[in-house]
């Protein structure tokens, strides 16, 4: 099996996203964690782009790496980071339990992928289409087959907006009366 440029790109971007995702968890400074998260988003966007999913890649960059990350960092600025760092649970037993949980989960997934490889390899992936057509197809799915889910999402966002305002106004909230 020869290694094509496409494969090489996949391994680089995949490795980068894994490493930066680990960084999110392992960095004790929340700002570094947030920056690692941004790197994860960017490398994921690269993976999407390498699969010719231009629209998803663009949205990933603009919405997640852009807007959401700025929000994260701004919220982090408002917190007292010293006490946040202290709030981490450290300890041999807790660490052991975390490792066991992660190990079990990883093992279950590796076993599942290994066992289903035969059936998965047989299925053909959807044919690649060029960027503009795939964006159009996405729009048709979003406003056609999945229009109800799309509209339900709107209702969900409305409820969250009103709920967030209401929460800030409860007794003891940041915008309480009197």
């Amino acid at each position, binding site marked *: 099996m020869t290694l094509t440029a496409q494969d090489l790109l996949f391994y680089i971007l995949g490795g980068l996203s894994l490493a930066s995702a680990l960084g999110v968890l392992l960095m004790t400074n929340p700002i570094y964690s947030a920056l690692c998260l941004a790197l994860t988003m960017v490398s994921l966007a690269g993976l999407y782009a390498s699969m010719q999913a231009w629209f998803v890649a663009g949205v990933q960059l603009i919405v997640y790496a852009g807007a959401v990350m700025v929000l994260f960092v701004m919220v982090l600025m408002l917190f007292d980071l010293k006490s946040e760092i202290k709030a981490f649970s450290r300890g041999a037993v807790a660490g052991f339990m975390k490792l066991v949980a992660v190990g079990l989960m990883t093992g279950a997934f590796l076993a*599942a992928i290994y066992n289903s490889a035969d*059936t998965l390899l047989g299925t053909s992936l959807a044919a690649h289409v060029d960027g503009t057509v795939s964006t159009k197809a996405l729009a048709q799915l979003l406003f056609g087959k999945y*229009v109800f889910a799309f509209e339900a999402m709107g209702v*969900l966002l409305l*409820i969250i907006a009103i*709920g*967030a305002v209401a929460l800030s106004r409860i*007794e003891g909230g940041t915008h309480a009366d009197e």
Partner: protein
Amino acid sequence: MNHALGISSYLIAAPMLALLAASLVPVMLKVFSGNREPHPFVTTAYGFIAVASALGLAITFLGGSKFGFHKALVSDGLALWASIIVLVSGAFSIFMMHDHVETQSKLFSEKVFLLLGSLIGMLIVVLSNDLIVTFLGIETMSLCLYVLIAMSRETVLSKEAAFKYFVLGSFASAIFLYGIALIYGTAGTTQFPGLMEQVGPLLESRNHLFLIGIIFVVLGFAFKVSVFPFHFWTPDVYQGAPTPVTAFMATAVKAATFVAILRLFQSTGYQHSVPLKEVISWLAALTMLVGNAAAIMQPNFKRMLAYSSVAHSGYLMVGVVAAGFGDSQGVASAAGIVVLFYLLAYSIMTLGSFAFVALLEKSVGQALQVDDVRGLGRTHPVLAGCMAIVLFSLAGVPPLLGFFGKFGLFSLAIEQNFYWLAIWGVLNSVVSVYYYLRPIVLMYMQGDDAPHVEMNKQIMTRFTLFGSAILIIVMGLFSSPILSALKSAILGRS
């Protein structure tokens, strides 16, 4: 590609649209009157009108076997009856919210808005024909509840409860979504009818990735209905939430989610996975045991009812096991009938028992103990009598409603050769009699010297308690017409 939606799509969604439009009225009234809170009674009336009109539209337009919005929604007997249960629970919860000391505040119209929003989410869940739509419905329903719990006037326990529920709930949702991704990756569809055809071949060919997807989705559901081992949040959250919200969570959330679980298990293909069958049967058995054993030891009334609701989830899981792993033809429909009947019975009983708790809670943050009901049979004979009926029904004493619910579930389990689950369920019901009868003993046989406890003048909460006691007797006596109505609604679609 034709994207036009027929009028039937909108008719199926009519109850949700009515709820959405009506839920905005109290909030808009508040905005346009210079942020002045409308009279709570006006808000309650708007809430009731919203639920009543949604109920009317649901009864008119749901049922049969119709699809809407490119098969994102399905309108069948299951959806119709589940909508009725959910909406009735919502109406009674609004009544109780109007009366209760922890929900009365300057933000009452927002609370009613959130409760109606939660009802929209539940209708989405019960009508959903697609795992993605189910996920959105569950999120809508849960997000409203997180905020509703946090908005209690009690300041410590309710905040802890809201945060605990929010963090654990988000985690469960993430796992649920991961499961959907794995299912879509292996089965190629998230719509229930197509998915149910794929279950058999995929499990037979030992596609473990699909199996993990199903397990993750079941796990997400199990969290919402507090099935062991995902029940640990239940007592804390039920205790910390204001009692009317607890009543709503214990009834409507459970009803909506169990309907979604039934839709996932409407296939005979699950036969091919023995481990899945074993695991889900054991989850049912352990949920019953853990709920009942913990409830016996609880001195706090709301925590006792919380553990009792865990135990009832265990009984309901027996129905799910029969639906997914029974081997006779049409077992899923039969399970749908008994599970819906049980949910109906359980919702009425639970609303009554939480109404009783609400009547005894006087101050914000008061932890009502089981011992506090001593002597109520002498001082408040009518209310104590109603509560005794509710408790007898929860324990499953014939000829009350609760008995027929359990009878239906366990006889279905026996028909499908799950003898050990049925016997286990009956044994657990016997254990549960102990903690359900303890308040009755305390009310009637002790506390001759107990001081006269002044009950709250909560007219609507009293009405809820009376109503549930009367419904328990009447529907218990006339359970066969209700069962046959359920049967014709559910079997009519196939």
